[in-house]
């Protein structure tokens, strides 16, 4: 019996605004000036804040941080089509997107400065804390969107971010499969930034793309230029629209580049060529977004200077708030261990405070 063909598949790649600022008018999304400016402002703020935090880290004023520099289009544009009551589930390389979700700037400093007080978003309770354990958060996004649907929230969807490195984790496979089987309103965004610390994308997977995995799970998938804010926006917007209509999950691979070290504890000169970084500098999402806004006549150098000034003052205010903070209560780590009170924990809290008093006296 001859072999039969049981299916043919293709994977689409979307780019709307190229690195030279040329825009494909047919594909150009209908975004209001207000939204476009909001997007650019957050991308810019994310970049500036990262640079500022890098300095703070180098001066020993905060601890180790991962930087999101170069990937601003991927996470900010993917967050733009979201409603406040959609669930936002990140990893740790989506700084500007967290800010778009209303997280106070100072929280990032508190968290990376070593204080639990900064590890949540007080302004949006549908934003999860940073997920350090790679890939674990995708399943949560599936569960969250399942819960929304079961509770009758017809219009709510969830998004989750992960990287090309995390894509190798078993949890990622499980999450994509569950989402597809349950047809959950979940948008998966893989920020393929080419490097998992020192491991290049090429030895993370031998597949041509990460987007094509969607086929294996029976869901929609697309690869987009992750440094093209319009392409990322369009793909995510479409994914959210489909999710809200009950048409299930989508996997979006945003092809981008980690311009900096993995974290400030990493030294990329040990494993990657600087010429590669230089190549990607030309594809910077901020440059092309700015040019796009200028070409549209809604941006100019004067506005840029104003924005830079405003962002700087907001960042400096956050730094000041972080550094002039009241000393936090030392036993705060005992506060949220359980939702119920237990004598053994309270006994340990008292012992801790007593020990701390004695240690301080003898110091």
């Amino acid at each position: 019996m001859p072999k039969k063909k049981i299916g043919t598949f293709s994977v689409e790649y979307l780019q709307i605004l190229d690195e030279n600022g040329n825009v494909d008018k047919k594909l150009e999304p209908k975004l209001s000036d207000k939204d476009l400016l909001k997007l650019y402002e957050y991308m810019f703020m994310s970049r500036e804040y990262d640079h500022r935090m890098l300095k703070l880290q180098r001066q020993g004023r905060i601890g180790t941080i991962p930087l999101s520099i170069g990937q601003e289009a991927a996470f900010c544009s993917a967050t733009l089509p979201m409603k406040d009551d959609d669930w936002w589930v990140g990893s740790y390389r989506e700084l500007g997107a967290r800010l778009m979700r209303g997280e106070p700037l100072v929280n990032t400093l508190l968290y990376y400065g070593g204080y639990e007080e900064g590890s949540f978003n007080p302004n949006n309770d549908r934003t999860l804390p940073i997920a350090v354990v790679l890939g674990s958060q995708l399943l949560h996004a599936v569960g969250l969107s399942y819960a929304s649907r079961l509770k009758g929230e017809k219009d709510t969807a969830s998004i989750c971010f992960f990287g090309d490195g995390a894509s190798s984790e078993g949890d990622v496979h499980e999450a994509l499969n569950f989402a597809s089987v349950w047809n959950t309103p979940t948008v998966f965004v893989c920020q393929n930034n080419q490097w998992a610390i020192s491991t290049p994308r090429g030895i993370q997977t031998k597949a041509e793309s990460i987007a094509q995995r969607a086929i294996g799970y029976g869901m929609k998938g697309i690869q987009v230029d992750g440094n093209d804010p319009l392409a990322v926006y369009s793909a995510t917007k479409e994914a959210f629209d489909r999710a809200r209509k009950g048409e299930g999950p989508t996997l979006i691979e945003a092809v981008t580049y980690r311009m900096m070290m993995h974290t400030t504890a990493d030294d990329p000169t040990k494993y990657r060529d600087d010429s590669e970084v230089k190549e990607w500098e030309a594809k910077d999402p901020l440059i092309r977004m700015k040019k796009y806004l200028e070409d549209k006549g809604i941006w100019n150098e004067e506005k840029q200077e104003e924005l830079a000034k405003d962002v700087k003052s907001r960042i400096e205010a956050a730094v000041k708030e972080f550094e002039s903070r009241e000393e936090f209560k030392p036993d705060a780590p005992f506060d949220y261990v359980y939702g119920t009170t237990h004598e053994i924990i309270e006994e340990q809290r008292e012992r801790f405070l007593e020990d701390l008093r004695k240690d301080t006296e003898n110091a």
Partner: protein
Amino acid sequence: MPKMTMVQAINLALHQEMKKDPTVVVLGEDVGVNGGVFRVTDGLQKEYGADRVMDTPLAESGIIGSSIGMAMGGLKPVAEMQFSGFAYLILPQLEANGARMRTRSRGQHTVPLVVRMPYGGGVRALEHHSESKESYWAHTPGVKTVIPSGPRNARALLLAAIRDPDPVIFMEPKHSYRAFKEEVPEEEEVLPIGKAQIVEEGNDITVISWGSMMRQTIKVVDQIKEERNTSVELIDLMTIAPMDYKTITESVKKTGRCVIVQEAHQTLGPASEIIALINDHALMYLEAPVKRVTMYDIQMPLFGRENMYLPSQGKIRRAIEETLDF
């Protein structure tokens, strides 16, 4: 003898054993080109090639599951978990397969595997990078859990771990990775797994610790010995499981007093087991209740507060003094 850090000493053990035994392979995230995020595997890939020193895809369970296969297939994998906080993903593979294969196959298939992982606090690290949860592994029969405390014993214990016929969890106190140097002999030195080491003999009190807590404990013990003219028996536990109950209980029979210092959480930490063993074998010799200094039963705080929470020299001192004065 050359003086080296723990990172260098572990690196030396890996180099020497890979050279000597072609079945030894090293695998993990960033262990090859980058030489590991702490540089513990530095230079190995250059020397022994990418077939024996593998940068793997990012998947802890995948690393250990395939290592179990390699081990059954005649290799001796030394797998690295980048941080112990990411290693819980290997528990299903280890518990269901690695730990049980010898039993299930009645000795036909064995898993001579080493899983190295940096653990512990005090280095201002990110969330999930500072825990001490040796109990998870020690609670798994069939798995040996080893924690060195300094460069010299790290090198000697790692050699023993690689040559051991069973899975060994090898927890490296990252606080001690570069904190101090010790003389480490060029020539091979092996310490047995399953044996605690009496670092110093004494008669008045037994003090037991392991891993990065040893340094703190030694400092306090040295001060107390001098101030009080006391003789302290100091034990480095080194193997958490299977535990060397004889060395512990013989010492307590002699001294009648005991303090245990652990970085792990209190509940069901190794100290709990040590106290139970003393209860089984040396209760009637005790002159004072056994005291333990531990981390509390809460999530390891982020680094802004971690030093308040880790066993401090003050806490260790007070525990020893109260036990001596009881």
